[in-house]
């Protein structure tokens, strides 16, 4: 030991004492610096060493305060004050340090050099300290201690829930007081517990940011969901402390962190963080834990993050409805653009899970299985639409057929799994109807009626089906049942009326004239306003001819003619009725000739509309199909001549419907143009523009024009009160979705559907035509490059394609005009 002291002393003598102290100060070793400075200062007081001694005292003092050694700090502060402070830098810190050790009452010795600003700052600090650490406030500062006591009393009153008591305590504190910040803080705190956000903001918004009250308010603001500019580590620690006091654990912080990670799409970190906090969440509240799991798997599945979902499923408890995570993985696959995994595999496994899922009663399990089959069927239909709209130019008919077969299988499986779920039947029937398979659709409706005998839609659809097939007796049965269910409904009324007309026809053909007349009278009673319609009068007249009552027939024809401007429509109605009632051919020809004769007259809107309505609305009798096509051809001729007619809306609409029904699209579009010009507020004509564009196919349609047309149709149909526009609205929306399906870039999950040739958007993003850049905005060079790339993909010769395009006539749009520049 002695040798060590000697060595130290020897060492010291070798160095300048000032240098030695300075080195210790620089190192932050204030204890050693103070020790050495004291020794050397005692030996040779004054000069430079005194300066370093004061700095060493101050450094040591601050160190002790930081370490919470207040008593030692007080002793050192006393020594420093006894020594006296001469250094300006030390003097400037001294008040704060004295305040911290509760010796502010000894400050007057040094007060002479303090500025007003220093005084204000010290007063504020002293006030904060008096509230936060009252023990450090000298007993001599009675006034300060009294006010601080009041603030603490108010805080304790708030803690007890005694707001009145807290307000009483705050009354005495003026706005100019250094405790005013505490007053605002406590008022804000009361608002915090009341969840009065505006009051909270009003009070806490007034806090000076460097005051203690503001530091307390910051974590509370976060707890209340208010914005806080900076959220550092210290603030997070404070929130955790608050939560621990309020709830026992820091759950909110974990949730806020997870939320932030979700917002940042940092999926890997989400899973890692959940692994860390899951136990805390579960211990806190099992329901909350389950909700967080729902949120996380849902987010991962929605984003198609299959890998992360699999990792997550290893550490999280599965949802009650999905014990093996198959449903979650299926949804993730559906939303994934990068995985080849087929969601069907997971859905199939989930169907197996549902067999034994204890959480659901059997009926619900069956319904769930039905719903999944339906979901798969819709997926297949979407796939078929994607293939149909694939712009690659290859023949996808096999894929389409496969998708449709799968859809059919799924619809049938749905009906088997959930036999009481009516929407399953309705969607299946709609599928068959759209596939032009009315017999299967009728079977589905009949199946539904077995389970739900009063299903109105099934009854009306079946009635309609039988009307179209000409089996009036069956149609009538269903129409009567539908009418009983909804006696005031216009559509069921019309269906019953049509069925009665059909019934009259059937009876008339069988020679049962009285009953046929009764059926016609019944039809009149269902829709009395249509009793005098040209079509009905013609049917009645033809029945009378058939019943060998020419006088009656003549009278009916005369009555009908009186109501008409010209007889053309009536002769067509008579011709059709004569054919349907199977009059003798000579009689049919007689009316046919009269009609042809009348057709030569000047064209009229009402005549064209009336005839078209007759052809479209009258369901063809099976044996009269050939005649109907023949009459339709004659009617085209008439309609073609109607170029200078002043159209009535309903007539023009009937003409368009007729031309659409008989696939006369080029003629139809002429009338559509007229319709848009004359009736721009009618959505129907705009809709037809969109339909016509879609008919052109993915390589020829004009995207902008189609979208504009459907959007306009949707807008107008939504504002219309016409019941027909409700159906139009649905069709236009469907059309719009088809347009997006025709574009490259819409192949979601196409990687499992088409081969890479079809994937402009999947594999060669840099080469693909951008969905977001319209052709009109591209340069000729860019279009040329794109065109050549596309030809190369499809194995076509660009020159030949251009020749073909030129043969097809002039460019119709800006885009095609630009392509002319390629030649």
């Amino acid at each position, binding site marked *: 030991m002695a040798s060590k002291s000697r060595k130290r002393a020897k060492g010291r003598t070798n160095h300048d004492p000032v240098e030695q102290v300075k080195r210790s100060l620089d190192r932050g070793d204030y204890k050693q610096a103070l020790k050495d400075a004291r020794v050397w200062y005692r030996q040779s007081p004054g000069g430079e060493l005194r300066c370093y001694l004061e700095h060493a005292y101050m450094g040591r003092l601050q160190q002790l305060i930081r370490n919470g050694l207040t008593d030692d700090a007080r002793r050192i502060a006393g020594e420093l004050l006894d020594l006296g402070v001469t250094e300006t830098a030390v003097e400037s810190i001294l008040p704060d340090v004295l305040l911290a050790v509760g010796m502010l009452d000894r400050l007057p010795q040094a007060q002479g050099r303090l500025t007003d600003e220093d005084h204000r700052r010290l007063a504020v600090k002293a006030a904060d300290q008096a509230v936060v650490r009252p023990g450090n406030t000298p007993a001599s500062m009675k006034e300060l201690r009294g006010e601080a006591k009041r603030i603490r009393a108010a*805080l304790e009153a708030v803690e007890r829930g005694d707001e009145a008591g807290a307000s009483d305590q705050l009354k005495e504190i003026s706005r100019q007081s250094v405790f005013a910040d505490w007053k605002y803080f406590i008022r804000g705190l009361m608002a*915090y517990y009341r969840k009065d956000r505006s009051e909270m903001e009003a009070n806490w918004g007034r806090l000076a940011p460097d005051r203690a009250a503001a*530091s*307390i308010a910051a974590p509370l603001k976060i*707890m209340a969901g208010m914005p806080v500019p900076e959220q550092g580590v210290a603030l997070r620690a404070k929130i955790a402390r608050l*939560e621990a006091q309020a709830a026992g654990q820091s759950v909110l912080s974990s949730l806020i962190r997870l939320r932030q990670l979700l917002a940042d799409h940092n999926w890997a970190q989400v899973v890692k963080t959940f692994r860390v906090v899951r136990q805390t969440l579960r211990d806190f509240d099992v329901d909350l834990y389950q909700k967080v799991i729902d949120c996380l798997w849902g987010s991962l599945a929605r984003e198609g993050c299959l890998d992360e979902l699999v990792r997550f499923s290893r550490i999280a408890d599965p949802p009650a409805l999905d014990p093996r995570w198959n*449903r979650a993985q299926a949804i993730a696959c559906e939303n994934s653009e990068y995985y080849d995994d087929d969601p069907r595999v997971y859905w199939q496994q989930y169907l197996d899970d549902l067999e034994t899922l204890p959480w659901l009663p059997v009926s619900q399990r069956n*319904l769930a299985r039905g*719903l999944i089959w339906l979901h798969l069927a819709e997926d297949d239909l979407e796939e078929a639409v994607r293939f149909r709209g694939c712009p690659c130019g290859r023949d996808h008919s096999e894929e389409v057929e496969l998708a449709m077969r799968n859809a059919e299988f799924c619809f049938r499986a749905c009906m088997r799994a959930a036999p009481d779920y009516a929407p399953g039947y309705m969607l299946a029937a709609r599928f068959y109807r759209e596939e032009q398979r009315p017999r299967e659709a009728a079977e589905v409706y009949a199946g539904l009626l077995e389970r739900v005998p009063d299903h109105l839609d099934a009854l009306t659809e079946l009635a309609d089906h039988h009307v179209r097939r000409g089996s009036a007796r069956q149609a009538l049965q269903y129409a009567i049942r539908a009418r009983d269910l909804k006696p005031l409904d216009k559509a069921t009324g019309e269906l019953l009326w049509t069925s009665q007309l059909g019934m009259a026809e059937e009876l008339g053909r069988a020679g049962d004239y009285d009953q046929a007349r009764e059926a016609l009278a019944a039809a009149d009673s269902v829709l009395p306003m249509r009793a005098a319609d040209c079509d009905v009068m013609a049917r009645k007249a033809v029945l009378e001819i058939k019943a060998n009552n020419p006088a009656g027939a003549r009278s009916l024809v005369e009555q009908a003619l009186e109501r008409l401007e010209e007889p053309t429509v009536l002769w067509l109605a008579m011709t059709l009725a004569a054919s349907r009632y199977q009059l003798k051919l000579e009689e049919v020809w007689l009316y046919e000739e009269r009609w042809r004769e009348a057709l030569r007259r000047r064209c009229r809107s009402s005549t064209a509309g009336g005839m078209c309505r007759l052809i479209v609305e009258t369901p063809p009798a099976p044996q009269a199909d050939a005649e109907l096509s023949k009459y339709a051809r004659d009617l085209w001729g008439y309609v073609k001549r109607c170029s200078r007619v002043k159209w009535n809306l309903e007539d023009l609409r009937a003409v368009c419907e007729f031309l659409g029904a008989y696939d006369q699209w080029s003629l139809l579009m002429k009338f559509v143009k007229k319709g848009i010009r004359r009736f721009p507020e009618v959505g129907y004509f705009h809709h037809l523009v969109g339909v016509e564009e879609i008919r052109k196919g993915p390589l020829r349609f004009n995207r902008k024009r189609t979208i504009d047309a459907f959007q306009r149709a949707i807008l107008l149909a939504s504002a219309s009160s016409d019941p027909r526009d409700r159906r139009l609205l649905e069709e236009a929306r469907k059309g719009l979705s088809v347009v997006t399906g025709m574009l490259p870039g819409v192949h979601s999950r196409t990687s499992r559907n088409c081969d890479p040739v079809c994937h402009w958007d999947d594999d060669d993003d840099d080469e693909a035509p951008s969905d977001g850049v319209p052709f009109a905005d591209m340069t000729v060079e860019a279009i040329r490059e794109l065109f050549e790339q596309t030809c190369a993909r499809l194995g076509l010769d660009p020159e030949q394609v251009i020749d073909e395009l030129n043969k097809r006539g002039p460019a119709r749009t800006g885009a095609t005009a630009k392509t002319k520049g390629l030649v």
Partner: protein
Amino acid sequence: MRDPYQVLDVSADVDDAALRRRYLELVRRYPPERCPQQFAEVREAYEQLRDPARRLERELFKAGGCEILDDVIAGMRSKLQERRIATETLLSLAER
């Protein structure tokens, strides 16, 4: 659209009668002429839950996202805000 269970403040296993009771209670609280937005929200939520098939369909195919966590956080905040914080704990937050 918010989670309908949250809107109606009912649990996922609520029965039909309780669901209807809760709906009527909320409709009385938010009449359409005074609170049209809340009324519409409550109605939409009820429509989603009243039909067992629609409810099950929603359960099967929904993939909840951040909105669930937002609701959880809001609920959590509300719960924590109700708990009184000890004065000493509050004052200890003054340390920077």
